[in-house]
């Protein structure tokens, strides 16, 4: 369990954060420059907060009030920095063995060989960091930290330079570690899928503040602010007026459309923000069962994009039923095979239904 409360003046804002990370993986998520790395540096003891307190498993690592500031050595925190920072004058094997104490030469050799095998770099023992590719360096930095059996792990975008299959292998390793070691792991990532897959909790940071903390599902499906919704891949942001609300549902007037949304703690007539998850807007098959669906609207596709696996469609609703002014009203995301099966390439007019679960109010 890591308890963290810190304040630190930075150039463009103040880092001001309180966070309790239980054992297991906590993903730090946030835009570039939010203060993720700085937070890790404070925990590792490489940067000093101006005020606050850092407690790991009941041991005080830092306390500005009581003037406690343990040296990095006595924090037993494993830290993989964003830019790896391998020791440039040491071979890969020497780098990895650096933190291995009280081990015989043979033991060290075994541990290093084992670590290298695990990161897919068996046989690279005698290379210098300058002779490695970016992704190889990143993996060595990871191995160097993992072999020290720390009481806590700080991983700063540890897989950013890796291809999918290497990354998947290391994901499995991290999950195994979590199970075996039972320590708090802080994990910075920009990859929401990665955060979701690995993390027990996600902490969303912006401009030095903690915006939300909770299990991945909560953060993704119940973002507490527009910023978080944006960060977690939300789209379709609107302003709406509360027409009615009950413990069962909220009815919103968005542009010229009334939408039924999940219940939310709002006042009548209040203007609220909402987002509609693009992958939760459903096209209605013409050959499907008839009958009006929830929040059904009608329009035509004005633009589409694909990344090979998914299509993003931009739907403009029929006049009189517009959600907003502008070129399009709704962004819709669907898998490529659905696109093909529905023949969207040839048919641009569609009715869609916005499931109430797709709507987040904040």
């Amino acid at each position: 369990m890591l308890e963290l409360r810190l304040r630190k003046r930075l150039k463009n804002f103040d880092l001001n954060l309180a966070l309790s990370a239980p054992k297991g993986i906590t993903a730090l998520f946030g835009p570039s420059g939010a203060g993720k790395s700085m937070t890790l540096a404070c925990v590792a003891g490489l940067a000093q907060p101006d005020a606050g307190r850092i407690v790991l498993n009941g041991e005080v690592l830092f306390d500005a009030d009581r003037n406690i500031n343990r040296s990095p050595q006595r924090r037993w925190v494993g830290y993989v920095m964003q830019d790896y920072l391998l020791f440039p004058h040491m071979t890969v094997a020497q780098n990895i063995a650096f933190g291995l104490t009280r081990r015989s030469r043979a033991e060290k050799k075994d541990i290093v060989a084992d670590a290298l095998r695990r990161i897919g770099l068996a046989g690279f023992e005698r290379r210098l960091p300058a002779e490695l590719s970016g992704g190889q360096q990143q993996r060595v930095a990871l191995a160097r930290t993992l072999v020290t059996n720390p009481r806590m792990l700080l991983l700063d975008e540890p897989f950013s330079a890796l291809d999918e299959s290497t990354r998947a292998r290391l994901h499995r390793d991290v999950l195994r570690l979590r199970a075996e070691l039972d320590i708090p792991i802080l994990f910075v990532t920009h990859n929401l899928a990665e955060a979701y897959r690995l993390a027990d909790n996600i902490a969303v940071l912006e401009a030095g503040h903690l915006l939300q903390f909770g299990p991945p599902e909560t953060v993704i499906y119940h973002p507490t602010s527009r910023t978080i919704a944006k960060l977690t891949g939300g789209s379709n942001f609107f302003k709406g007026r509360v027409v009615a609300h009950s413990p069962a549902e909220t009815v919103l007037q968005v542009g010229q459309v009334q939408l039924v949304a999940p219940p939310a703690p709002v006042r009548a007539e209040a203007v609220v923000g909402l987002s509609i998850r693009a992958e939760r807007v459903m096209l209605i098959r013409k050959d499907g069962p008839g009958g009006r669906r929830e929040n059904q609207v009608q329009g035509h596709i004005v633009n589409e994009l694909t990344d090979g696996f998914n299509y993003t469609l931009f739907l403009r609703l029929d006049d009189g039923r517009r959600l907003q002014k502008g070129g399009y009203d709704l962004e819709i995301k669907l898998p490529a095979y659905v696109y093909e099966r529905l023949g969207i390439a040839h048919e641009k007019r569609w009715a869609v239904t916005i499931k109430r679960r797709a709507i987040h109010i904040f």
Partner: protein
Amino acid sequence: MAAFEWSPLWLSLRVALLATALVLAAGIPLAWLLARRNFPGKDVLGAVVSLPLVLPPTVLGYYLLILLGNQSVLGRWLNRVGFPLVFTWRGAAVAAAVASFPLLFETARAAFESIDPRLEAIARTLGRPNLFIFWRITLPLAWRGILAGLALTFARALGDFGATLMVAGNIPGRTQTMSLYIYDLVQANRQNQANQVVLIMTIVAVSMLLTARLARRAVK
């Protein structure tokens, strides 16, 4: 032409090696301290230890003689414990060390300051004690600068004249280093012999500097 005198050469090498060792032992920690720690008066200290370079060596030697000779408490104590410095080759080494101290000190400090402190920081998170980190990270990364400083120190110690002369006397066979010998030959108008000795000194120095260079290349 007289047979070549080898003893000044050996003596010079011995003196220069001891001086370099002394400078190394004192200069590296001090350079590190001034590069990495903050304390009041740090800059003044840094400037003061560079002073031996500014004083004419003979004058430096004169002060050293007064400091280490039997007029001073230190000198008398050294005498009593049977480790006199003045007029011994060890004294020559001490004089040469003082004279060349700034060379290593300054270059080592610059080298330490050039190291990315995050490398030392990350080493600390790996749980190693500071001394270990100094040995395995800081020193090797500052190696180029330190080696340059060492080469300078050694060369300067080998060539020291003024300070050595005052502190160690110019006792042939005992404290007459190569430098003093060359000086004597030139003064005595024995140019040819002087040239010959300078040549040998040059060869020795060049080959030592070359060796250091190649060693540096090899570890890189």
